[in-house]
């Protein structure tokens, strides 16, 4: 065992940032804490590496870095050249797109909804999507195949898999294939918004979702 035995300490002091973020989502807080200075964004997780880079860069004077978030300017979900983030929602259950699309559009994203994976992939040949939220189990193609094809078309696209059949094995496989995140159904829209926010930030956008 390690020679130094750390005192148990206060639970809160050991609470990692990703846990806090989920707490915020559950508490329904409209402000998820991602303000322009990024002070509270410091975190140790690889998933949030960009956040550390962001806070460090902000301390250096708001320099732009790859994957870091730009200084907040203009309306939400806009990058420094004023373009909106493009999100694709792919799920063969129509209710999913119907629930998510209005919220995300209101938050300033450009949203397209697809029920059919083949059509979705064809659309990706025409336009680049920054974030794709896709169901895992669909009739024609499964989520892993969709993930692989999306990333073969555009490596920077953040693919978020959602599924009612979540298992350890599937989660790990999704990560190995390049998924950004993996969410089990049922979930609250605010849970997904928190993840989309992270994805947006990792692409260099401020992600203040209402």
């Amino acid at each position, binding site marked *: 065992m390690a020679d130094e035995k750390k005192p148990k300490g206060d639970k809160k002091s050991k609470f990692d940032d990703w846990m806090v973020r989920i707490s915020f989502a559950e508490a329904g807080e409209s402000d998820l804490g991602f303000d322009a200075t990024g002070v509270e964004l410091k975190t140790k997780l690889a998933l949030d590496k960009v956040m550390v880079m962001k806070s460090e860069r902000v301390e250096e004077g708001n320099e732009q870095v790859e994957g870091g978030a730009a200084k907040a300017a203009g309306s939400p979900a806009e990058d420094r050249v004023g373009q909106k983030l493009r999100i694709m929602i792919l799920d063969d259950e129509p209710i999913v797109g119907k629930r998510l699309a209005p919220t995300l559009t209101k938050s300033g994203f450009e949203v397209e909804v697809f029920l059919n994976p083949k059509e979705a992939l064809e659309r990706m040949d025409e336009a680049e999507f920054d974030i794709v939220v896709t169901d895992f189990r669909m009739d024609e193609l499964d989520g892993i195949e969709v993930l692989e094809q999306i990333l073969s078309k555009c490596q920077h696209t953040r693919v978020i898999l959602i599924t009612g059949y979540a298992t*350890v*094995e599937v989660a*790990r*496989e999704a990560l*190995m294939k390049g998924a950004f995140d993996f969410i089990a159904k049922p979930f609250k829209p605010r849970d997904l918004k928190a993840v989309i926010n992270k994805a947006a930030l990792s692409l260099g956008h401020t992600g203040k979702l209402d």
Partner: protein
Amino acid sequence: MAIITISRGSYSKGKEVAEDVATRLGYRCISREVLLEASERFSVPEVRLLHAMHDGPSVLERFGHGTASYIAYVQSALLDSVRKDNAVYHGLAGHILLKEIESVLRVRIIADLQTRILVLSGRENVGRSEARKMISRIDEERRKWSRRLHGVDPWDPSLYDLVISIDKIGVQGAVDLICQTAAQAPFVLSDTARREIEDLALAVSVRSHLLEIDQNVTVASEYGNVLVYTKATDRGSGRLEERVEWLAGNIEGINNIEIHTRPGRTSSDA
């Protein structure tokens, strides 16, 4: 140079792992070829070799001379394969057939029963209940074989350097792990180890040719100097001497070959 054996439960994606490892490392991937090679070399039908390597003995049956010889033939063919080049072996009983070689990376791939049932059902187009029974039967045969012949349970993790749960780590994860481990010092074969493999391959090859004359013969080799040990009572017929003389002229690598007599006891394998 490195040698990797991948033992696997049936339908555990072990073949896929072995092939991917071999591709990634640029190694030869060996499995059924050793049976074919042994079959040709020793003029024994492949199905008999497979039976000897796979099936446990029935209640009325014991491991007879035939089985021991067949296993030796397969071992000889396998050693011949691996001594030449970097190799990944994923056929039957690699961890036993190659146990005398130090520095072999011994890996076992395990999978959840449900995963194996799914794989078998899909591959062989059988229902799940039938698939479960088949897997259970295969597992039982292999365990019986291993216990009876070598006194070991193939599921004992201490027989392997790595045991990887394929459901949890995934094929890609398993391949990464194996490749990383194979590159580490204990598994990179030294010149001494390579020479020892050559000697072992030669000893097993010689023994394979002598088993039909003397089931209890043991053979050792060092730098191509081969020593054949037999019981005093087995030397009477002269057949052993004849065969040894023939081998001296027909097996590559033999510098010298001698027969020594053990007083009366049966010996263990070389």
